[in-house]
């Protein structure tokens, strides 16, 4: 990498010229290939020379740069673009380049390398590419921000011209005057002010961070279509070893910007085909309706085992990997909060869901009920059978439910080859369950008390 930024700029201009000349060259070559007639060849060559001359002239670096500097105000380089909110929004776009490490919230500033977007007239987007050319960590953007344009010294000796270029290109870095627009979001944020009791507000104009969306887009596509990711997936499928982790983004959604013309929104948007990935933040889903359990013998049935299967599996893996050195608070904490608690959570969620199904009320005293008495007493809260309620009041069923839970869990966790679970563990799980069950029951709605 010996080339300097100046060389890269010269290369870029040369490249632009070649693309312009290409159709002309093609036409010339066509004639050269086809005919042997010297007159025709001479004619074609003359045509080419005539048409190519003005192009050659415009792409003379100094001339092209002067023109480019004039056009620069048509675009603006930005990390945050207003058009993502509405394609007609004409508010200012912003360029954020600082890098902040010590912050606890993810923003554009927490990215080290930010993809810089360009918004504006699509015809002037070639300038964006020019400004973004980076050689050894330096680009025209960083130079402009530092207040000089040393890389362009190579193309002119005239100080005046250089100043003009600098002033011109600088306009691409941001609007001289910031403006909002009716089509951008503008929201009031209440702020505390020590000197007045009234509400004070700041008006926030949120802009979409194209840089952050681009980073997420790259990360997601990398895990899906990257060469390395493919190798990892392949290894995992076959059960082979691979030193790297297999990472996948699940439950993602795609939001499209700009329809069939993503370049109208911004350059980076066009690069990601107008798509932006969104991460799921939805709450867990539970089945809204459940059937009367009267046909089941126990609340800890196959359905419950199915719902907790993932947690149980993780719990088993955790127990299997325990070593003697793990006898400490951290392990016990993990056992309670990472593994036991989610299963208990599911238990109480299911119970509450069933208790809330008031249209099922009375199932526990129907003649063909198969479920254990204790479970019936727990779950059919609003049963209006007096003797049923009297028995429920005694709360003797709590002990039994907790006992059944512990028995069920122990059976699920059984793994005789690796570890043994016995009465100690049974009474531990029972206690844990009973204690939470009592708290749960304390505020359970009663018959007539809803």
């Amino acid at each position, binding site marked *: 990498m010996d080339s300097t930024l100046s060389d890269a700029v010269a290369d870029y201009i040369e490249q632009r010229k070649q693309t312009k000349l290409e159709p002309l060259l093609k036409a010339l070559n066509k004639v050269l290939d086809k005919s042997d007639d010297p007159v025709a060849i001479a004619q074609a060559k003359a045509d080419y020379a005539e048409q190519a001359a003005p192009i050659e002239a415009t792409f003379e670096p100094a001339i092209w740069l002067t023109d480019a500097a004039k056009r620069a105000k048509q675009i603006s380089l930005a990390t*945050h673009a207003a058009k993502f909110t509405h394609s007609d929004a004409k508010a200012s776009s912003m360029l954020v380049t600082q890098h902040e490490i010590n912050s606890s919230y993810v923003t554009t500033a927490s990215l*080290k390398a930010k993809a810089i977007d360009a918004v504006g007239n699509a015809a002037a987007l070639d300038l964006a590419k020019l400004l973004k050319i980076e050689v050894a960590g330096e680009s025209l953007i960083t130079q402009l921000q530092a207040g000089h344009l040393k890389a362009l010294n190579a193309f002119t000796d005239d100080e005046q011209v250089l100043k003009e270029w600098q002033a011109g290109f600088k306009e691409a870095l941001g609007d001289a005057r910031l403006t909002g627009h009716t089509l951008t979001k503008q929201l009031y944020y209440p702020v505390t002010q020590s000197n007045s009791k009234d509400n004070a507000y700041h008006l926030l*104009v949120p*802009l979409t961070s194209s840089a952050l969306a681009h980073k997420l887009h790259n990360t997601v596509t990398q895990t899906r279509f990257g060469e390395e990711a493919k190798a990892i997936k392949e290894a995992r499928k076959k059960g082979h070893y691979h030193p790297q982790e297999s990472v996948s983004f*699940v439950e993602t959604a795609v939001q499209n910007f700009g329809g069939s013309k993503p370049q109208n929104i911004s350059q980076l948007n066009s690069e990601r085909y107008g798509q932006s990935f969104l991460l799921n933040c939805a709450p867990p889903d539970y089945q809204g309706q459940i059937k009367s359990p009267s046909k089941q013998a126990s609340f800890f049935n196959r359905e419950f085992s199915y719902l907790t299967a993932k947690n149980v599996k993780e719990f088993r893996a955790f127990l299997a990997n325990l070593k003697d050195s793990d006898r400490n608070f951290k392990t016990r904490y993990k056992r309670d909060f990472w593994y036991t608690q989610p299963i208990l959570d599911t238990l109480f969620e299911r119970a509450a869901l069933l208790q809330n199904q008031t249209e099922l009320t009375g199932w526990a005293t129907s003649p063909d009920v198969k479920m254990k008495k204790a479970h019936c007493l727990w779950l059919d809260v609003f049963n209006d059978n007096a003797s049923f309620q009297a028995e429920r009041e005694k709360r003797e069923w709590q002990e039994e439910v907790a006992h059944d839970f512990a028995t069920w869990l122990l059976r699920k966790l059984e793994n005789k080859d690796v570890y043994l679970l016995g009465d100690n563990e049974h009474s531990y799980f029972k206690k844990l369950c009973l204690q939470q069950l009592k708290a749960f029951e304390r505020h359970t709605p009663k018959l007539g008390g809803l």
Partner: protein
Amino acid sequence: MSQYVLIKKLNVQNANAIAELTYGFPAITNFLGFAHALSRKLPASLNVNLGGVVVISHKNQVHARQPKGWGDYVFALTRNPLTHQGKTAPINEEGRMNMQISLLVELKGLVAGDTLTETDLKAHLKRLIPTLRLAGGQILGFEACELLNTEEQQAYALRRLMPGFVLMDRHEYLVAHFEQRKTEQDDVCLFDAWCDFATLTYRANPSEHQQTEDTVEAEQAIVKANWEYVPKPNAGYLVPIATGFCAISPLYDAGEVANVRDNTVPVTFAETAYSVGEWQSVHRLHHIESALWRYTDNHPWYIATTNELIQPIIEPDFIDSEAAFNPDNF
């Protein structure tokens, strides 16, 4: 003793389901804004105001589908009126959702036992709530609006919100995980740490006896391995959330920026700030306070947050001895 207004089982349709890079639930600031708007509309004569908000989700239906039955979700979009030229109007996609939620809103300024104000307040709330929008969606109705004055009432009411999930602030998990990642890898950034809360990760564990066998030709040898699920950095149902805003410009004085809706307040350009949240089942919410989101402002940060996390310990009195739980290892 804090007092709360409980807005129970509020049904909202067509609420905004997208918060910049996240989807599935409106950003927490929407709910704070709702409570704030409600507070402003209450007559001054009541002399009360509403503060922080606890959000509990009961039902959640995002208007999105998987066209192929798997893979990325796409949003169900609206068909808008044609343009004057008779062409389809250009749109930027919106995500919408229906939801059933309950809100616990902190109530300040109500004198205990002042039943006259209480009834008045309830009547006003019942009248005002359906007139507002929540996260851009229409409010279809709600089951009840109650005042919870005592701890007993609050515990009683919480149990009746089962099944449901409370949104908890877990930004300290993100910070801790980032610190952890930094010790392993130098060039890691906060964004990577944040993504770890959204991804599904598996790690290969080579089978040991195989490894020794293959040392001779380690280059070509294919080592068998078990791929194991790598748990999320912390326990719980953790999700990436949009939690507020970060200013990306200086704070401009009122009137300095052109074309804004109000020329009497200071203006700043901002971007969304992300963090991590946890959906926790309601029966584990022992102190309403710990899930109470409030506005904080400290330019450039405009963030909604809850109080510091105090992790409850499951009754220590019976975790005391090793004997209580001791799987025998072979």
